[in-house]
């Protein structure tokens, strides 16, 4: 029988979310931004898994089901993001977000 303090997990996922959002907002390279998104997504998935593991009601299993679906979703998101990077890279030869400024006035 494994027994662990719940609060530790919330602290861990909060820290990972903070790292992810921080990276998303400060990095300029698109691949690093994608990685930051994945770190934050992993924090979310971790939330569902441990809430399911500590659930006292009968619906805990749904947390694991959500985690399965979210892992698949995150992989799709990465694929779409990379497709956009590659398309843009072919056009401009750069994946630096700061240089993508043709839209700014």
């Amino acid at each position: 029988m494994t027994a662990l303090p719940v609060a530790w997990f919330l602290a861990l996922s909060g820290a990972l979310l903070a790292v992810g959002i921080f990276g998303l907002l400060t990095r300029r390279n698109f691949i690093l931004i994608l990685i930051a998104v994945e770190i934050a997504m992993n924090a979310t998935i971790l939330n569902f898994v441990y809430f399911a593991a500590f659930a006292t009601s009968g619906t805990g299993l749904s947390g694991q089901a959500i985690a399965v679906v979210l892992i698949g979703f995150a992989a799709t998101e990465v694929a779409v993001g990379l497709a956009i990077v590659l398309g843009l890279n072919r056009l401009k030869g750069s994946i630096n977000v700061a240089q993508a400024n043709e839209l700014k006035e």
Partner: protein
Amino acid sequence: MNLEELAFLALAAVAVGTSVAALLVRELVHTILWVAVFFVDLSAIYFLLNAPFLGVLQLGVYAGAVTVLLLFGIMVTRKRIFSRDAATGIGPVPLALAAVTFIFLVASLGEFPQGTLTVQSYDPTALSGALFGNYGPWLLLLGLIMMSGVAGAIYLVREGRE
């Protein structure tokens, strides 16, 4: 402090450390290495939480597929960019936002049962039953998302006549 708690603390430290390292190192290829360690580490946490199926899925999809995808992305684009540009100014606003988020989350820690809780284990059979039973619509939606993602991604990267 028992063995599980020690294991969790070690894994958590590695998770935070590798995620920060991944975003801060200079060379993009090193980033991928750190991220791979991060994904494997989280998978270990899932095993600790008695969720072996998710642990395996995390290994296969994240540590395997996603890492390779990211590596490919870097390989294809690296002919022009070797490493990312020097870290551009970390604005105070994002930093503050991230910090506030974390502080709020820590504040909510006080609400939790302070002792330890037993980790429930779920039978993978029950999980698959739920996924294809009551929670089937989620999988259907995931299928739609993947279908549109794949169709659009193929179109964007396809070399072809216009």
